[in-house]
């Protein structure tokens, strides 16, 4: 009897160890605590950023690691609301860059933000059409033409909300064939030629250069999306987080963002730096 119980105990112990080993594989939120406070910055920084920031933040993270030898930046890209949900569930992140103010506000209300969020970029909608513009779209009004297959984001996601306000602004009611849950899905439908046109961000058009053509439209100016960034309360390396945010909001960061098609942040909340 005792023998059997022992075996079960051993088994349970082994499985606990296994679980610990597995969870230990994930990188911690910060690196060596002894290194913090020294003039030479070092350690690991985990940045959660909206999917639309993938290209720019990948470049900026490399830049950051170059300037601060000994640091490692781990990036995680996803939809802003997914990231916000993960953070509120305790995901180990140091910095959060959102593609809308609403999800940042969600975290701020939950007291998960350290200090103030900084708006660092804006984005506007553009009409994306497949290469060659088969449906000959030239204005927002063209999207409402019968037979034109338009794909937009669903109103629940930020790009969809922006599309709705553009519709209101233009006084044009669209009848989309699909309301996708992410801007990437909209872009995908345009790239594959399934849709004649889609409403995506200017940065998406730039990122898919060659595969889609972008058609800016004036009504988009009334539906500007603002990108805020903030350090997180749960961060164990807040100094490193602040340094990364400075890079993004600073002139080098701004140049990289502008190259990718982002607009400058709204002037009134622009940081002094």
């Amino acid at each position, binding site marked *: 009897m005792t023998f059997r119980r022992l075996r079960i105990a051993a088994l349970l112990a082994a499985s606990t160890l296994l679980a610990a080993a597995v969870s230990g594989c994930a990188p911690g939120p910060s690196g060596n605590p002894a290194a913090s406070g020294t003039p030479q910055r070092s350690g690991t920084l985990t940045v959660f950023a909206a999917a639309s920031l993938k290209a720019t933040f990948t470049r900026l993270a490399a830049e950051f690691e170059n300037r601060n030898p000994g640091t490692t930046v781990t990036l995680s890209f996803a939809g802003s609301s997914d990231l916000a949900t993960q953070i509120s569930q305790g995901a180990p992140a140091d910095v959060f860059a959102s593609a809308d103010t609403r999800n940042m506000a969600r975290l701020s209300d939950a007291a998960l933000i350290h200090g103030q969020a900084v708006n660092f970029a804006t984005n506007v909608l553009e009409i994306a059409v497949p290469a060659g513009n088969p449906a000959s779209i030239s204005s927002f009004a063209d999207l409402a033409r019968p037979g034109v297959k338009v794909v937009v984001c669903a109103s629940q996601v930020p790009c969809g909300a922006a599309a709705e306000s553009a519709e209101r602004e233009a006084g044009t009611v669209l009848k989309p064939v*699909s309301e996708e849950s992410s801007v990437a899905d909209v872009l995908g439908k345009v790239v594959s030629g399934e849709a004649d046109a889609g409403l995506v961000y200017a940065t998406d058009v730039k990122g898919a250069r060659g595969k889609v053509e972008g058609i800016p439209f004036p009504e988009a100016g009334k539906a500007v999306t603002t990108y805020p960034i903030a350090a997180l309360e749960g961060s164990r390396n807040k100094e490193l987080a602040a340094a990364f945010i400075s890079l993004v909001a600073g002139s080098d960061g701004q140049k990289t963002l502008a190259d990718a098609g982002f607009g400058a942040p709204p002037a009134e909340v622009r940081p002094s730096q």
Partner: protein
Amino acid sequence: MKAGQRRSPGAYTGIPSWIYVVAAAGGLLVVLPLAAMVAKVNWAQFIPLVTSESSLTALGLSLRTSAASTLLCIVLGVPLALVLARGSFPGQRLLRSFVLLPLVLPPVVGGIALLYTFGRQGLLGRSLEVLGIQIAFSTAAVVLAQTFVALPFLVVSLEGTLRTAGGRYEAVAATLGARPGTVLRRVTLPLVLPGLASGAVLSFARSLGEFGATLTFAGSLQGVTRTLPLEIYLQRETDADAAVALSLVLVAVAVTVVAVSYRGPRRPPAGPFGSERRTTAVPARDRSVQ
């Protein structure tokens, strides 16, 4: 001392006790997340959340498309299973591998593949468009995507049943003068009906849960292509309570469907000595295919 000597009220099972521990862990892995989700349900708002127009539309669309794709799975899958189980031709193994591929393929890959087949610029889509048939962004696209991912479930289930049943009943039927069509209708299909039914139920359940291929291939529009899983995914962006409530509805529908019509492999009828099998009289093979 030995694990196998564990006293139990029933018959001897031959299962070492540590197996129960691991089995319990496996069961918990499935049950615990479901329980956690149930715990998160906002019961006060549950009814309004699940009876909202968009929710009901999505549920109705899901049930309709899943029923249609199950039907399509039966129409296409029964001949496939027959050919795989009974036929003998070059490339049979290859055909089986390809039919089973969607089981292991990420659904989004299936969606992309379908897009390049039935999409406007796709292999068949271009010709279909000429004929005035547009599949992209239509409910038909949802049914296609669901059929693509669900078909292997029916084929695997039915092929297994066909193999277990063996070809001897068919051979006897043929020597009695029944032509192949009659054998199929009056012998083969009735014999494998349980396998066909469980395969159809699995296909329905898989169709009901289809997400990735639909999202990639069919798009998402209320009442047309936005099935319940897509609605849940979208609601999650803004309203976690609604997403959880709808998830629960989906789980409930799936559990009901599976419980009602899929009772799992049948055991031989219990004799006077518990689950001991009757070894004389009727050959076991006769019973297993009823």
